[in-house]
């Protein structure tokens, strides 16, 4: 209960802080439109309305991941620049409860991209916005956001120790949205990509969002997405515990 309170307070603070950044908001709302335009032009060739919605949702979730990949690492580094990382580490709260709200808030900022992408698709490309299971759609969106935020947390845990590790998450931007089937269906990718894709929670989050909108079994991908998200959280907690001690030993908390 106390942990949930800390998480929620942190999430609200960081969401508010990020929303107050014009750069962040512009990036979150406009960047995905580029993906969306490319996706619409590619998928329009099939002349099938569901394909356009499939592409629209893929582009929107790509926007969430792009924001997270580029900002999660930057966010930890930014806490360092602001001189806050040391204060956060010096607090008696476990580091996982301090950092998880930051990466989840960043992913949540990406939700703006869903609105802008769907609106863009509707106005410019006539994408139908009919959703098969509105309730499940409403559940699968936060599940996908949370899974992306927690994958961001897993990557961000290394940023506490390694100042340059944020470049790693930026380098993972394209591979992740390719492997998780955000734009290209997994069936079109080589077979060896499959196991990697299944280990990534956003794959299942994306699948849940699409099935809730277009039709199909939503429960299974939602459950797998939740299970993987829990696994990421546990792994991130272990890594953070280890990296925090190393950072105290190597004196990297205050370095910029």
């Amino acid at each position, binding site marked *: 209960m*106390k942990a949930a*309170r*800390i998480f929620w*307070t*942190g999430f609200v*603070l960081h969401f*508010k*802080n990020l929303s*107050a*950044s014009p750069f962040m908001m512009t990036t979150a709302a406009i960047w995905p439109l580029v993906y969306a335009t490319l996706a619409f032009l590619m998928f329009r060739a099939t002349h099938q309305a569901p394909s356009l919605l499939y592409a629209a949702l893929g582009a929107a979730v790509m926007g969430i991941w792009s924001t997270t990949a580029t900002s999660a690492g930057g966010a930890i580094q930014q806490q360092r*620049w*602001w*001189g*806050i990382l*040391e*204060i*956060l*580490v*010096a*607090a*008696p*709260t476990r580091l996982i409860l*301090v950092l998880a709200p930051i990466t989840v808030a960043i992913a949540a900022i990406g939700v703006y991209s869903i609105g802008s992408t769907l609106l863009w698709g509707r106005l410019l490309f006539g994408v139908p916005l009919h959703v098969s299971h509105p309730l499940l759609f409403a559940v699968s969106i936060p599940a996908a956001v949370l899974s992306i935020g927690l994958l961001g947390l897993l990557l961000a845990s290394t940023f506490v120790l390694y100042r340059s590790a944020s470049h790693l998450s930026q380098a993972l931007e394209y591979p992740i949205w390719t492997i998780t089937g955000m734009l290209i269906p997994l069936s079109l990718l080589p077979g060896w990509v499959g196991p990697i894709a299944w280990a990534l929670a956003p794959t299942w989050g994306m699948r849940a969002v699409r099935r809730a909108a277009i039709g199909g079994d939503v429960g299974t991908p939602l459950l797998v997405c939740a299970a993987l998200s829990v696994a990421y959280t546990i792994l991130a907690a272990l890594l953070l515990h280890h990296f925090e*001690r190393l950072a*105290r*030993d*190597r*004196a990297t*908390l*205050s370095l910029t």
Partner: protein
Amino acid sequence: MIEAIELCRTYRTSTGVLRRKPLEVEAVRGISFAVEQGELFGLLGPNGAGKTTTIKMLITLLLPTSGQARVLGRDVVEDARDVRKRIGYVFGGDRGLYERLSALDNLRYFAELYGVSGKAQRRRIDEVLELVGLKGRESERVEGYSRGMRQRLHIARGILHDPEVVFLDEPTIGVDPVGARELRGTIGDLISAGKTVLLTTHYMFEADALCDRIAVIAKGRIVGEGTPAELKAGVADGRVTEIEVFGVDDATVERLRALEGVTAVAVEEHDQRQLLVVQTAAERELTAPLLAQLDGIAVGRVGSREPTLEDAYVALVGGE
């Protein structure tokens, strides 16, 4: 309340681009001291002396390379989380706050991180805002705050959870004189409220005005410890001669230092003139030999005065 025993910290880094050579920097070399309950203890020293490294080991942000430290009887390495619950940490400068948010948002967040329960939060935030003189300004964004206001907000954040021990790392650095005076008042209030405070500063008058006891650090070692009066007494049997000069060079200063009976020489730059502060043994009258060494240099006012804490500091640090 605070105990450091032979505390050492070495930083390991490397130099070079292609052929990297390991480099070790000994920032703290065997520091020992103890701070009693309700005491305001000062760590005084020049930049790079090891003050901040010492404080960071005590607040659990850095692991000591060797030695031991305990805060409220708890080991700073083994019982880090327990120590963190009971201490407050405030550092100087502009950073360390969420600028785009209000002071209230900042305080609410840190209250949560420091385990201040929901019911007590509102009351405690009001109390600390009142204490640091920011009541009525808490809804404004921090980016609009002056440096002094930010520093007072830092103190409010550091004492939100009502810690028994507060660590203040150069809290008045960069703050204007009026703001610094207000901050010193706030630090005095912390002592009145029963807190134990460890303060680092390189402002002599600040240490003199606030601290019950002072440890002077230079090059990672404690070179003097005592009350401000005791430290001053260490140079009280000496004399201080101040000589105003125009265009003194390093070689001349070295010649003055080499004179028999001279214990320390400091040079204060004032635009085109310099003030030579020369400490000498009490029994020696050295004004004439000193002036003889300044032959060919324009000399202005010459005078002597009682030693201050700054003179004690120069005598202690200058020897290192």
